[in-house]
């Protein structure tokens, strides 16, 4: 079985002292930031991106992945204790988790969240390891037309699953695609839409755009909102759940993991969607649905398992196809490209150490979260008492230094500022930045494959539907769009996002 040999390769990379260190650092920073409301995981990753560039590629990705699932974990801590989801995938955890905390069972709620995350993380790691090989094999059969259609599917998924109005998400994808094209054209060397600015020769920088939209804009919006935080004084008499509770949770945990693993792979999917779906499923399947919303421990276990599984399997399309399924994965693509790695199926065969090392580190990181973070819950809670006014000036400074350090030019700072202001505008008009960043990353790739496919077919656009795999992918995109405009789904979608 190759699987074990591959995982062994991975652990050999992940278990070097330096990489253990970066994994730990990532998980720690991620948790820290996940705990602090007002700083989403995507913001953290965007801000910390530049600081990982000097690391070797594997270490850099290991650390970024650590930040990602650390934030996931930290988000559930605040959801349970303060009823403030640190990030969107923890929103459902608030419902029953916070009720448990109010009933004095904060300890078991936190523990079950951690255990569920770990179980899900372990299973998802195995899923990634087994699913990656066939996915890459399939991807190697892909040609330009298939790649183009696959990206269409990815972007459609992003539109369907975006919060807010889908027609605005479509517009944001288009704008992202367009702005992604700025810079020197790879095929002809002609500078495009650069307004003769030297700083735009290599295109609009990915880091300033991401930090502007997700860092600066986020701060300006958060500061404009009145924020109230009531802290629940929690006693940690009994941290551990009883055996009966554990037994009650196990099926919920496994169902959540399965659901999350599947939904995470879908384009546009990932952690948030998985946790919503898992909660809904548990409530439906339970013999005592009335307990949900009043501190049902399954209501914590299932979504926590699902969001962690989903977060991890959303790496599958990225690692095997080179296509990011959601905005956070788009940032990962940015990180890989700046490291000089073109994401795609060839990564697995050409750089097995990197590929399997990152996967093995995910399991390691999940273990660290349980072993190191549960005893530190007291510390995380005390962090919540730090007022926001002391935090955000530091974030502004870090955004600036991070952006500057990528190219050592203040031009990027001005780009970041522009996108920060644009981000506030997008927020005010109800347009999501996530589809934008996906389009922005995919723009050049999509154009290249489109041009190549059209060249190969001598200008015949029918090539996209005459090639079977491409046709299936396009049909799936179309189906997604049709589902989206069906009135019944529209209503349901509204309900899901309303919560």
């Amino acid at each position: 079985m190759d699987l074990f040999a591959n995982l062994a390769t991975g652990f050999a990379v992940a278990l070097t002292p330096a990489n253990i260190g970066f994994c730990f650092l990532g998980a720690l920073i991620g948790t820290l930031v996940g705990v602090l409301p007002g700083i989403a995981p995507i913001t953290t990753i965007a801000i910390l991106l530049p600081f990982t560039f000097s690391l070797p590629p594997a270490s850099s990705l290991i650390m970024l992945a650590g930040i990602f699932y650390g934030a996931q974990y930290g988000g559930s801590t605040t959801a349970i204790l303060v009823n403030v989801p640190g990030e969107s995938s923890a929103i459902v955890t608030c419902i029953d988790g916070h009720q448990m905390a109010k009933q004095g069972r904060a300890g078991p709620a936190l523990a079950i969240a951690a255990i569920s995350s770990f179980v899900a993380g372990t299973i998802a790691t195995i899923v990634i390891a087994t699913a990656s090989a066939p996915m890459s094999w399939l991807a190697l059969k892909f040609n330009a037309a298939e790649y183009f259609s696959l990206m269409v599917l990815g972007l459609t998924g992003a539109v369907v699953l975006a919060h807010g109005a889908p027609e605005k998400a479509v517009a944001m994808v288009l704008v992202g695609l367009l702005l992604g094209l700025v810079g020197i054209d790879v095929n002809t060397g002609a500078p495009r839409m650069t307004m003769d600015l030297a700083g735009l020769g290599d295109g609009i920088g990915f880091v300033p755009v991401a930090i502007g939209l997700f860092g600066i804009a986020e701060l300006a919006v958060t500061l404009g909102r009145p924020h109230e935080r009531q802290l629940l004084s929690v006693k940690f008499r009994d941290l551990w759940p009883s055996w009966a509770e554990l037994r009650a949770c196990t099926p919920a945990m496994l169902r959540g993991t399965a659901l999350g693993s599947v939904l995470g792979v879908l384009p546009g999917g990932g952690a948030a969607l998985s946790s919503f779906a898992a909660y809904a499923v548990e409530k439906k399947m339970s013999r005592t649905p009335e307990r949900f919303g009043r501190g049902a421990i399954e209501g914590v276990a299932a979504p926590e398992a699902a969001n962690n599984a989903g977060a991890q399997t959303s790496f599958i399309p990225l690692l095997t196809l080179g296509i990011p399924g959601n905005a956070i994965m788009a940032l990962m693509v940015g990180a890989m490209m700046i490291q000089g790695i073109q994401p795609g199926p060839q990564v697995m065969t050409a750089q097995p150490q990197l590929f399997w090392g990152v996967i093995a580190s995910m399991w390691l990181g999940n273990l660290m979260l349980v072993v190191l973070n549960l005893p530190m819950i007291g510390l995380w809670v005390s962090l919540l008492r730090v007022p926001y006014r002391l935090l955000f000036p530091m974030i502004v400074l870090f955004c600036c230094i991070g952006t500057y350090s990528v190219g050592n030019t203040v031009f990027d700072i001005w780009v970041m500022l522009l996108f920060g202001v644009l981000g506030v505008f997008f927020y005010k008009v109800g347009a999501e930045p996530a589809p934008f960043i996906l389009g922005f990353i995919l723009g050049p790739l999509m154009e290249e494959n489109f041009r190549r496919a059209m060249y190969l077919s001598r200008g015949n656009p029918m090539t996209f539907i005459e090639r079977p795999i491409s046709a299936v992918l396009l049909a799936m995109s179309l189906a997604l769009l049709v589902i989206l405009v069906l009135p019944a789904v529209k209503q349901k979608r509204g309900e899901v996002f309303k919560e």
Partner: protein
Amino acid sequence: MVTRLNVPDLAFAAFLVALGALAFALAGELSIGSAAAMGPGYVPRGLALIIMVYGLVLGVRAAFSGGVAFPEVAWRPLLLISASVALFAVLLPLAGLALTSLAVVICAGLAAYDVRLRENAVLALALAIFAVLLFVTVLGLPIPVWPR
């Protein structure tokens, strides 16, 4: 403000049309080529055109879907955060990281409605020292620390 227009949607539509028009103009000199051998201008101009038309459609719809005012903008955080970023861009090449950090943090701190001046000053000093130590001493970024 009483309005019969959907102002946020209209603003977004206007943004799309303006951006599409700008991109279309900028891509104007690039050759289009043919469908089989696309020039550098083919896709950008196509996209710009699609965005403009899409924006127009959204705009027309917004004009008739009525009655939403533009949400209130919290100007103080927006302006002061922007100012602090601009300050960084202007000051860094002149004054070096230490003084720039000080200025950026003080300016950004004022963006909070509950700012306390003395606390903010102390924070700025602490963060300036921290930034220099972390980014220049530990991470070794090639950023000048002092004015030259």
